């Protein structure tokens, strides 16, 4: 959540600038926005009409770059490197950070091998440095590095810009979550009722037994002490009579 706050001013700044410019003047602005170290959200800039007008013009590659940064990964860039302009190192770094975010979307446990393949990093040391310095210190990811099992457990990852279909799946997940918690609440309530009713039954039973003990005590003390009453075959009866004898 703090990332959103950190970005909010930057987003405002770029949006204002972009709405004032047109056409090819937007290109250096886009380059600046994508290289900025704290900016990870681009959908606001994508929504500005003058940016969208770049579609189809000679500068549409910049729009594609912006779209790539909003939704794509490093492997997307490599695949389409021919039609996209060359990226400066800051942009490369930014794109790799965004790639980590995308990977964290699907799995919570990211194996080092997958990360190294996606990010074009050859050894574990570099990967860990990248994860620690660029991702965790920037605050976009929080998690634990498990070197023994060679994986990265993600506990928190900042959100990327939404793809058009993603809203539907988010709503679906939320409704599932709601349904599960509703069920859980119902079952907890049932358990509470069960516990209460069981304790009621127990109390009643105890009271009954004590009442009968009292009854038998009274009826036995009326008879003379020499004649020991013939014990009944039930265990309760025996217990009752022994109580009488012992006292």
């Amino acid at each position, binding site marked *: *959540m703090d990332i*959103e706050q950190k*970005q*909010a001013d930057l*987003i405002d700044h770029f949006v204002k600038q972009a709405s004032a410019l047109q056409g090819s003047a937007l290109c250096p602005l886009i380059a600046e926005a994508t290289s900025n170290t704290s900016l990870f*959200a681009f*959908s*606001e800039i994508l*929504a500005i009409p003058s940016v969208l007008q770049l579609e189809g013009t000679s500068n549409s590659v910049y729009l594609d770059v912006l779209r790539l940064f909003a939704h794509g990964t490093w492997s997307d860039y490599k695949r389409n490197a021919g039609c996209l302009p060359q990226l400066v190192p800051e942009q490369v770094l930014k794109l790799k950070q965004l790639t980590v975010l995308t990977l*964290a*979307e699907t799995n*919570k*446990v990211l194996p080092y091998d997958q990360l190294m393949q996606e990010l074009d990093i050859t050894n574990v040391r570099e990967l860990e440095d990248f994860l620690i310095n660029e991702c965790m210190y920037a605050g976009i990811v929080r998690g634990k590095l498990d070197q023994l099992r060679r994986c990265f457990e993600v*506990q*928190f*990852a*900042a*959100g*990327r*810009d*939404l793809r058009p279909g*993603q*809203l*539907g799946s*988010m*709503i679906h*997940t*939320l*409704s599932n*979550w*709601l349904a599960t*918690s*509703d069920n*859980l*609440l119902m079952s*907890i*309530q049932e*358990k*509470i009722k069960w*516990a*209460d009713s*069981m*304790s009621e039954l*127990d109390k009643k039973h105890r009271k009954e037994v004590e009442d009968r003990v009292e009854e038998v005590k009274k009826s036995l003390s009326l008879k003379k002490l020499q004649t*020991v009453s013939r*014990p009944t075959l039930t*265990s309760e009866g*025996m*217990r009752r*009579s*022994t109580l009488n*004898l*012992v006292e």
Partner: protein
Amino acid sequence: MASSSSSGLTFKLHPLVIVNISDHYTRVKSQMHPPIGPHANDNSNGTDGATSLPPPVPRVYGCVIGIQRGRTVEIFNSFELLYDPSTHSLDRSFLEKKQDLYKKVFPNFYILGWYSTGSDAQESDMHIHKALMDINESPVYVLLNPSINHAQKDLPVTIYESELHVIDGIPQLIFVRSNYTIETVEAERISVDHVAHLKPSDGGSAATQLAAHLTGIHSAIKMLNSRIRVLHYYLLAMQKGDILCENSLLRQVSSLLRRLPAIESEKFQDDFLMEYNDTLLITYLAMFTNCSSTMNELVDKFNTAYDRHSRRGGRTAFM
């Protein structure tokens, strides 16, 4: 008498003060002769032929101390004072003695005002208030309402300040209510938490303890549920187009949803099932032990009963 204050001071109240005041009040109430209780009215005032009023609920008085930094007044602690009904004032010499003692232990604390119990601030309180004005030029008056009102959701504590208002052409000091927040130190938080979670341990059966524990979990999940519902509704409205798409919020929601499921690895399943099985095993063993000891007792009693019956004058029951 009590409108809202305009002095702009922020008040922070520590739970220790509230606990002190209520403890003072409870002690005094329970030590009064005759004791005030729900059925004390039949015993007391028995000589009166007419219907007797219940003895007046005692008011307790004391001083509050704390720190004032700029516009923030933080009330940390309090101590009790004796009220002299004849002079309608608080015992001044005792106050000063206590003040010196507290100054030695807490050099930063100043006397910020005084407290009392009751349902509303009264005119006579202004005398005490004015008397304290030579120690602190604008003292605060903390009022605790000791009557228990189950419908009331917030604390029955009000903080009053005094302000000079012109009423009927005469400038008078009146009490005005101020807002306050509760501020806790770690130790206070632990003790309040402890009191809040008092389980009925007076031999309340396992069922009531279980019910209490489950109720706690239930209310926590209910709160979570209501918040998720709000998010869900919000997203639905956004999808329908009723609300503008706010990207920053959407990003935060998506990052939140990515944290589900909270734990789902094989290792977790293994550990969890192992612990679950261990607990079940132990419960089973405990039941076994219980049953076997009951059986043992029963057999002892049976032997005792039948022995005396069959072997009169014989030896003691074999065991």
